[in-house]
């Protein structure tokens, strides 16, 4: 394959050419209620060409028929030449990498019979259904893949990466008359078959929660002191801050650049945030990004001060900074854009735990688990799976429909305590941006306290 790509590179008349080819083997099993929805094996493959010429813009071609590769290189070049630019696009230097990076397959999923995978998921799905007769519906899914990615560019990079992934998810729907609640478990790992065994308890817990929520009141809308659990704190830092640290948001926009000036204070000295694509064994981990740049640990906020941002080669060149290995594409169907990998809030002082965070809160909310989050940059939302009221320093009743309305500047700055109990939360699903969803990412955080945050609901 590498030879075939090298041959096509040689024939390109463009100043810069890159080619990415992917071949993905995947299998999927899904249950809905007691019934199997599907059990299938799929193969997907295709290629992506991107070229650049002096004084011109990007020319891009993606395709499923690899026989068309030479023609697609020509067409990408024509497209690039049709885009005239006054100010040229420059790419920051990256030493051309040549490597075969084979991640640990951890029990190659291609060698496990589909019937085994069905049996595994049947067990997890059954565990949810067995919790209560109030569990009227479930959605359970198992999906695995092994993806081979070849990348070459005209500067001499030549990479082969083998990436496994396995995702388990379960939704339990509890119902009593018109009252309907859900519990959600989601596990996403850049690993294989060995890593998805023995999760019955976690599936049981979410089904029980769906039942418990049937009796829970809706949280009252107001501004409260809020404690985020590890999972929601991770989603919070991804939505609230991570997307703003993606340099494609600032690199062409002087006002945005001013707002995100390095050295600006974003939080109290307890706050340290980063993105680490090179962390070992996480779902957002990759040895190289989709421009062939090695990944790294990039500090974004250190002691409350903005110190870095995430780059592609283009955004790094424009801002005179160094590429960070954050140019990622969800598949050969898309160009690489600036994305997060494994984003984290670093742990606070060792030994500081959850109880230290709530002891002086008279009335507050403990927001747990994550149904999701979305950002509009300054403002963002993150939806907890469930919550508890905090009363007089103690965890009190269960509440539902806990959605936090955040404002970047107000919320980050009001993080006043961070516990030492850091965990990575390896969830399934993924991040969406620019029509590219779901991109595998991981978030990590300890328990985090926000002095005051707005929670929506009846007032």
């Amino acid at each position, binding site marked *: 394959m590498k030879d075939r790509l090298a041959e096509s590179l040689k024939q390109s008349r463009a100043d810069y050419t890159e080619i990415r080819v992917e071949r993905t083997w995947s299998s999927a099993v899904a249950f809905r209620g007691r019934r199997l929805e599907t*059990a299938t094996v799929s193969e997907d493959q295709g290629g992506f060409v991107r070229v650049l010429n002096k004084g011109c813009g990007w020319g891009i071609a993606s395709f499923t028929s690899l026989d068309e590769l030479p023609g697609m290189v020509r067409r990408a070049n024509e497209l690039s030449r049709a885009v005239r630019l006054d100010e040229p696009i420059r790419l920051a230097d990256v030493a051309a990498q040549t490597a075969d990076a084979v991640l640990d397959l951890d029990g190659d999923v291609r060698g496990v019979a589909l019937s085994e995978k069905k049996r595994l998921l049947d067990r997890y799905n059954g565990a949810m259904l067995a919790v209560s007769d109030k569990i009227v519906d479930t959605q359970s899914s198992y999906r695995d893949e092994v993806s081979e990615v070849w990348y070459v560019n005209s500067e001499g990079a030549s990479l082969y990466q083998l990436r496994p992934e396995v995702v388990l998810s379960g939704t339990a729907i509890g119902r009593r008359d018109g009252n309907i609640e859900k519990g959600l478990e989601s596990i996403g790992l850049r690993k294989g078959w060995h890593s998805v065994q023995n999760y019955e308890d976690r599936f049981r817990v979410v089904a029980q929660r769906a039942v418990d929520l049937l009796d829970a009141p809706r949280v009252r*809308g107001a501004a409260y002191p809020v404690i985020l659990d590890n999972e929601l704190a991770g989603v919070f830092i991804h939505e609230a801050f991570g997307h703003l640290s993606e340099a494609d948001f600032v690199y062409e926009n002087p006002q945005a650049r001013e*707002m995100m000036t390095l050295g600006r204070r974003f939080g109290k000295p307890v706050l340290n945030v980063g993105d680490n694509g090179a962390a070992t064994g996480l779902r957002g981990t990759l040895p190289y990004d989709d421009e062939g740049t090695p990944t790294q640990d990039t500090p974004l906020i250190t002691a409350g001060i903005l110190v870095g941002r995430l780059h592609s080669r283009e955004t790094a060149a424009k801002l005179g900074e160094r590429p960070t290995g954050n140019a990622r594409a969800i598949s050969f169907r898309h160009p690489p854009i600036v994305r997060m990998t494994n984003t984290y809030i670093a742990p606070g002082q060792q030994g500081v735990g959850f109880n230290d965070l709530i002891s002086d809160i008279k009335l507050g909310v403990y927001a747990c688990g994550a149904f999701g989050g979305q950002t509009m940059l300054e*403002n963002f*939302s993150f939806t907890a799976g469930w919550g508890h009221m905090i009363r007089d320093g103690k965890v009190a009743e269960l509440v539902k*429909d806990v959605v936090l309305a955040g404002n970047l500047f107000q919320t980050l700055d009001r993080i006043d305590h961070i516990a030492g109990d850091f965990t990575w939360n390896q969830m399934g699903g993924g991040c969406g941006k620019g029509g590219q969803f779901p991109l595998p990412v991981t978030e990590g955080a300890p328990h985090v306290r926000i002095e005051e945050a707005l929670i929506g609901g009846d007032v």
Partner: protein
Amino acid sequence: MIDRLLDSARGRVDNADALWRREEQTAVAFESGRLKAAGISEEAGINLRVLANGRMGVAGTTAAKPDPKELVERARASAGLGEIVQLAFPGATAAPLPSIPTFFDHTANASLAELIRMGRLLVERLSRPGCQINVSVQREVADTAVGNTAGARGEYRATGIAVTADLTRIAGDDVLMVYDQYVGADMPTDADLEALVRSVETRLAAALTVVTPPEGALPVVFTPAGLAAVILPLEQALSGKTVLQGSSPLAGKVGETLFDARLSIEDDPLTPGRPASRPVDDECVPSRCTALVERGKVGRFVYDLETAARAKTESTGNGRRGVFGKPHIGYTNILFRMTDGGRDGGAQQAAPLPSHELGGGLIADIADGLIVDDLIGVGQGNVISGAFSHPVGLAYRVQRGEITGRVKDAAVAGNAYDVLKRIGGVGRDGRWLGARWSPSLLLEGVSVARR
């Protein structure tokens, strides 16, 4: 390809159906007012479903020259683990498929230069100091063929074009994002592009002043874009799948009046000029219009072949499938057909307002309330229950019948089933937004919380 595949399946399985689709996209992207990239994408794939020994299985591939035998074997292996289902594949019919234009020459043949010219026009009209304007133009031509071993066949070509303008204005720490798009099967007219420009301009102009949000249970005008959070629970509950699973609050309520009597909602795959329109669904079922809600009463649920078989009813032609996975239920075009249910509405009689007019003519009697144009995090809560709770992305305060400015740091919450029981007013600003047509709706008693 379909015929070869179905021939190969005959004799080796009980029955089979398949979809083949080839898509070609051409896109141009302007970033910060500059044309930055042009791209094409070509993709073809085939999806096969079989019934073998009464059990269902599926297989798909994007391989350029798929081996029919291998694909059938993979689908058979999938069926080996599959459930028993009495799928009734539609047979060949003497009557032709409904006639609906899905292919527009002008769209299919538009040159790259033409797409660039359209984008440039929007950039020029919407550029202003302190604002960053991104525009994308994306054209698609798709060929679809569906068939089954019972002899049904369907084939059509379709075009689609999406023109998107999004404007970001950063002033100090205030980030304002205003967005709109044209989506159609045919190229936008000058008037369509003009409407897009006016829509972004109007939303921007009204947003320049930031005011304190109100608080309490208030009248809120949901624009066609803002309505998404209210409609999503209904879309989930009206799906035959959730009804079958027992998780739909509307199960067993067909014919009951649960909504305002002026509210009717249809799923209509035969709407001219829409990219989601089609003569036949992805399972060979001829397209037809389905009344989901009729004058406030729960109408029909939508089904694909499998859910219809399990619910012992007929498919409504809402089967949708991709290259991978099995067919599932999907809506086509969702249309709000508001009628005067004998109340004070009469909206249909009054002249329509241009869609860029914020509030659709519904704000004159609001003493204090909101216009909600965009909410953050829609779809991420416990949607099926009807409950919604979202921070505002773009919303305006209305005081004494006038828009006084944009509000930030506020959250709206309610339950779709409660707020749609009585609609306070129907806007005269009906428009398409993607695959949905609706006017603005004035809904009462929506909770607004603020910091």
